[in-house]
């Protein structure tokens, strides 16, 4: 079970990768939509795509359009992670399953990922789901 992380901001990616790997998830990162499509066309077992929207070369919208046109790729669930103020509307336009607006809530993101990815939850899962800072 792998997660495909599509985002061009390396500090974000680094922090997110550390958080996910601590949970026992395996993360593959690409910096834009074009690279994401390339990876998806190789043999893979991505359970979910974490998609940023503002990226150079091919942004989140462009990526999603092409993903949906390809039957082999269209069914992979997408979680939109965006700084955009219209996050809800944008996610709806994209037909994304879930969206998070930056700055995200880590426990909420982990809970969302667990809906798509079957893996052994790491140490964080044992803390209370509604901790005050979530």
């Amino acid at each position, binding site marked *: 079970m792998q997660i495909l992380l599509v985002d061009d901001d390396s500090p*974000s990616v680094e922090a997110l990768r550390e958080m996910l790997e601590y949970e026992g998830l395996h993360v593959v990162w690409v910096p834009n939509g074009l690279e994401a499509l390339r990876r998806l066309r190789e043999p893979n077992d991505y359970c979910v795509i974490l998609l940023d929207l503002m990226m150079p070369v091919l942004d989140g919208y462009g990526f999603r359009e092409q993903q949906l046109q390809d039957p082999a790729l269209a069914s992979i669930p997408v979680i939109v992670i965006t700084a955009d103020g219209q996050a809800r509307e944008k996610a709806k336009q994209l037909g994304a399953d879930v969206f998070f607006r930056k700055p995200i809530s880590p426990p909420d993101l982990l809970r969302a990922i667990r809906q798509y990815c079957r893996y052994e939850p790491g140490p964080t899962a044992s803390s209370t789901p509604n901790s*005050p*800072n979530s």
Partner: protein
Amino acid sequence: MESSDDAIISKTLDGIITSWNPAAERLFGYRAEEILGRPISVLMPPERSDDMEAILGRIRRGEKVDHYETVRVSKDGRLIPVSLSVSPVKDGDGRIVGAAKIARDISGRKFAEAERERLLREAQQGVQLRDIFLSVAGHELRTPLNTLKLQLFNLGRSLTSPQQAAAVAKAEHEVDRLAALTDRLLDVARMAAGGFAMEPAPMDLSELAADVVARMANDASRAGCSIEVSAPDPVIGTWDRSGLDQILTNLLSNAIKFGQGHPIRVTVEGLRGGARVRVRDYGIGVAEADRERIFERFERGVSERSFGGLGLGLWIAQQIVTAHGGRIGVHAVDGPGAEFFVELPDRVGS
């Protein structure tokens, strides 16, 4: 002719100057005796040399030329923008023998036009830059906030003492506050420049209220406030959802902040031709003298020290309500606290 402010010049059909008034002397710098008998082309800059045929051609056909804007050159070599009116001159038998020209100096007007165009261009560039800034700024500011929050979370996981965990939790909360403040600042910047774009669509106000209350449940319980929603029926209208979301979030956030741990009540009602939302708290209330002032930019009902924030939330809310054609305010209540209300027509602008 002698007392006219406009230069009046006569010429033959071949363009030889036959009369020259004092205004022409002032405009072009040539005294009458030094220009009479010379060709009119003396006054034309090289790039305007086809003017002569263009004008005289029409004169020969008996046509009048009016408001012909062009450029002439004075004796000392200055280029002067002028507007010309040229009429045919006929002899006693009705034959066209020459042309009478009135030349008006329009350099003042030309300068003003050029200035106006320059200012317009600058303003347009300014607006473009502002719009780019606003759309990029939000993204640019939230991205490091996101990283900060994630790293705090990562840090928190490796700590053992409860005090350390509490400190990290507080830091994460501050990041959320920063993000909210950034949003407000950008909203104000956009609205102050008149750039608030609405996207009205059919929606249910009761559903939105329930949504916002659910989202603020954590903040409310942390402050010891319970929120009760009275919105039994759908209240449908055509409004900008994210705008109304912002208003409700702001009113609830204030109610929690100033509610002193007492219950908060949100009521959504359909009215004839519109809808009303009321947010009632039982906290410190709003003095009558402050009831209008708190909606102004940067105004606050209390001191900065005790309650953080920029004092923009209610001003933003008012901009959005006004854009919908509605009303927002706070009215007196029995007992402690305050009740804020928002009234909206059932569709934007009606």
